[in-house]
């Protein structure tokens, strides 16, 4: 369906700027949404997608800029206010009450009443009617939690329609749905589009975006890259716009990645057919001594999920793993550590740093966990290790007694790197170690990875920045839509080629 640009937009955001402590989250971003369109909002982590959504739905206060809804200037100070203005949001983690019935979730707060008491027959009849409008046949008296996430999301959309929403924001609704469920959701979305609802759609799946959207707005690093008609934007152009290029002067590292890897004999780690239902499809990965393997792919492509399986952070339900040729079972992080594997999560705050402990305690934490509670890392030993790593990685400020939570992101990342290096692993799995940190710290970390692999450490390196992956890795595992779609030698491909591979390679494009 072609977008009628003559129709005035229902939502017009102009020059939206939001400043968080230390970060410019949104920098003069314009965004418009028209009735009867499905508009995809694209961008990598930290691009500002969720910030923009939260600005529109009244969760965040905007520092400057204007929001117009249906031609009138509005300032929302709560989600309730945005809802009253006809803007409803359905989140990835469904914001309904799983303990209540389907019908009640649709109607909660708007139940028909008779003589002051809720008329349950009418509640369920009305809910049934709203669900039917979306083509859903459900037992409205069944408990919401007895339904799949997909159905729960459709129920949430149905609720938004009870509120008579003109704008529907779908924030990564498809990330936990299977193919059939996605089809059902898309059918509902198209239905709503026909009836004039404006839909803002966020998804990491390129196929889905191209299948259902009319227009695409791309954000990067808090700034607007542009707004495009889907027909005018080929996939590789989209990926290029999302990822962008960052010129960092790291030529000398790029040379080092050229060194030959000895691939005779058993690899340090070899995983075959390792996968998890609902997480990532079975894939093979092998890493040799001193080798850096990059995992490339967009956010949500399954790169993190695969890394977590290798470390035992999540339990694989298929496949086998070998370390130096011996079969091993890795069902927990502890077992992985015993086999010399270390893992640094992409989620520093929730899964990495122990915020209330000091920098020093955080650095020796890995060793301490390895040794158990009886053998404490003695003060002298701790001081020596901490001093070494603070100097080697350039942690700033170089104060071991500082609360780790007070460090900047880049320095927290260095502390985590130190934590794992101190355990002397054979294989390090680094998930987005350079995300959200300044250029200097980024270069420090890249240099350190190159240096360590030179000395024989094997590394799995995951990053959204393809140039970084290309520079550091000898081989690249490419992921898309929760599948491994191929493996490339980094000498045979450049950034454009890799983008093209991620966006277009058909071999691995499997409909789930």
């Amino acid at each position, binding site marked *: 369906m072609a977008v009628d640009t003559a129709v005035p937009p229902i939502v017009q955001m102009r020059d939206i700027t939001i400043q968080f402590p230390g970060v410019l989250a949104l920098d003069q971003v314009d965004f418009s949404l028209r009735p009867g369109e499905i508009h995809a909002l694209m961008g990598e982590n930290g691009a500002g997608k969720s910030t923009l959504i939260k600005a529109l739905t009244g969760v965040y206060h905007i520092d400057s800029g204007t929001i117009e809804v249906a031609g009138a200037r509005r300032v929302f100070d709560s989600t309730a206010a945005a809802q009253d203005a006809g803007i409803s949001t359905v989140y990835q983690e469904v*914001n309904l009450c799983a303990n209540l019935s389907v019908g009640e979730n649709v109607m909660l707060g708007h139940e028909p009443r008779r003589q002051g008491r*809720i008329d349950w027959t009418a509640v369920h009849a009305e809910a049934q009617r709203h669900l039917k409008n979306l083509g859903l046949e459900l037992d409205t008296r069944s408990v919401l*939690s007895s*339904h799949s996430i997909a159905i729960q999301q459709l129920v949430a959309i149905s609720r938004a329609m009870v509120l008579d929403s003109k704008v529907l924001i779908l924030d990564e609704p498809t990330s936990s749905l299977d193919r059939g469920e996605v089809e059902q959701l898309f059918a509902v979305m198209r239905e709503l589009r026909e009836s004039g609802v404006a839909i803002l759609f966020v998804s990491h799946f390129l196929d889905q975006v191209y299948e259902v959207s009319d227009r695409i707005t791309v954000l990067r690093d808090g700034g607007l890259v542009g707004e495009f008609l889907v027909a005018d934007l080929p996939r590789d152009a989209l990926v290029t716009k999302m990822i962008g290029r960052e010129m960092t002067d790291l030529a000398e590292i790029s040379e080092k990645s050229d060194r030959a890897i000895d691939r005779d004999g058993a690899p340090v780690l070899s995983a075959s057919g390792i996968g998890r239902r609902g997480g990532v499809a079975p894939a093979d990965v092998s890493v040799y001594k001193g080798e850096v393997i990059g995992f490339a792919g967009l956010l949500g492509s399954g790169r993190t999920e695969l890394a977590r399986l290798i470390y035992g952070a999540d339990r694989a339900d298929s496949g086998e793993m070998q370390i130096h040729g011996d079969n091993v079972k890795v069902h927990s992080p502890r077992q992985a550590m015993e086999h010399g594997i270390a893992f640094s999560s992409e989620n520093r705050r929730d899964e990495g740093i122990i915020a209330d402990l000091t920098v020093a305690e955080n650095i020796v934490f890995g060793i301490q966990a390895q040794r158990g509670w009886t053998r404490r890392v003695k003060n002298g030993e701790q001081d020596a290790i901490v001093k070494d790593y603070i100097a080697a990685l350039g942690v700033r400020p170089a104060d071991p007694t500082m609360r780790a939570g007070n460090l900047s992101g880049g320095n927290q990342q260095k502390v985590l790197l130190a934590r794992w290096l101190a355990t002397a692993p054979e294989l390090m799995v680094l998930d987005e170690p350079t995300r959200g940190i300044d250029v200097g710290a980024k270069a420090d970390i890249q240099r350190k990875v190159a240096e360590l692999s030179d000395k024989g450490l094997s590394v799995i390196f995951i990053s959204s920045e393809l140039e970084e992956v290309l520079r550091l890795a000898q081989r690249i595992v490419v992921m898309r839509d929760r599948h491994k779609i191929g493996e490339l030698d980094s000498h045979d491909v450049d950034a454009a080629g890799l983008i093209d591979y991620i966006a277009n390679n058909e071999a691995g494009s499997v409909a789930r």
Partner: protein
Amino acid sequence: MTTVQTTTADRVASVTSFLRTFTSRYASVLPTLAAVGVLLLLLMGAQSRFGNFVSPGNMSALLLDNAYLMILAVGMTFVIVTAGIDLSVGSVMAFTGILGASMLSTGVPVYIAVPIMLGGGATIGLLLGVLVQYFNVQPFIATLAGLFLARGLAYVVSLSSIRVEEPSLLWLQATRFRLGDWYITPTGIIAIVVVATGALVMHFTRFGRTVYAIGGSEQSARLMGLNVARTKVMVYVISGFCGRLAGLVLTAYSGAGYPRNGIGTELDVIAVVVIGGTLLTGGRGYVLGSMVGVFVFGTIKSVISFMGAEQSWTHIIVGALLLVFIVVQRAIVARSDRPR
């Protein structure tokens, strides 16, 4: 042959589909049904053991003896369904009782004393609700302060028991409306009215549904535009009111106010509410289930006194039953929350 097979298959299919409908709709009733089962087993067991256990007199006494507990359980159900907890109810009950007894003994007329007992104006429940909602104090800690406060105030009123001689208050207990060998006292009627009102409010008002929504997910409830703050404060006010009403009933029952009344009662109340099928993690539970829980508790007590055993067995058995129910609930919730 084939036809027979299909009909069997159909029958199996219809049974399984019935089961599926049932579990998808009523999984949350299962713990309460289990409590009903436990109650029936207890009654049948006791009847076959003693022969005269399930008698009209004994069953009527069950309601009479546990009226105060039933009232407290209703208030506690509201609080626990929002995933909160109220530890102050036993102390509030004692404070109300001794306050009332003291006022009546100093000649305050009953039509003034009773409204004061039931408490207008600033109440402990309101204080606790405000602490929980606006100052983000954990319910456990806030109501702990309430427990201390009310207990201490009870002793401030009087350090020893005060007899109540006010006839209208004693009337609540002494009057027996009879139907054959069955009887009910006004205190029993109050308890039943409280249960019925509680059940209706929970099921048929937006306030009641908001209570459930908060227990399911407070954040969702807020995003759905429900009035979370007011509702959360209200449940503590309701629980506080039930505590005071229970104090009035207990004073009538025992004919005296006593500052040591209701020590540990908050635990009994929590136990009966959980045994009655309310989830301590919030979101599921029924006022009627709590009533069943009270009957289970009362029956255990009465069986133990029939057997002439130590009353301390009551708490051991209730504790064990509580544990079983908590573990079973965990299993049921884990199962029903797993999406298909």
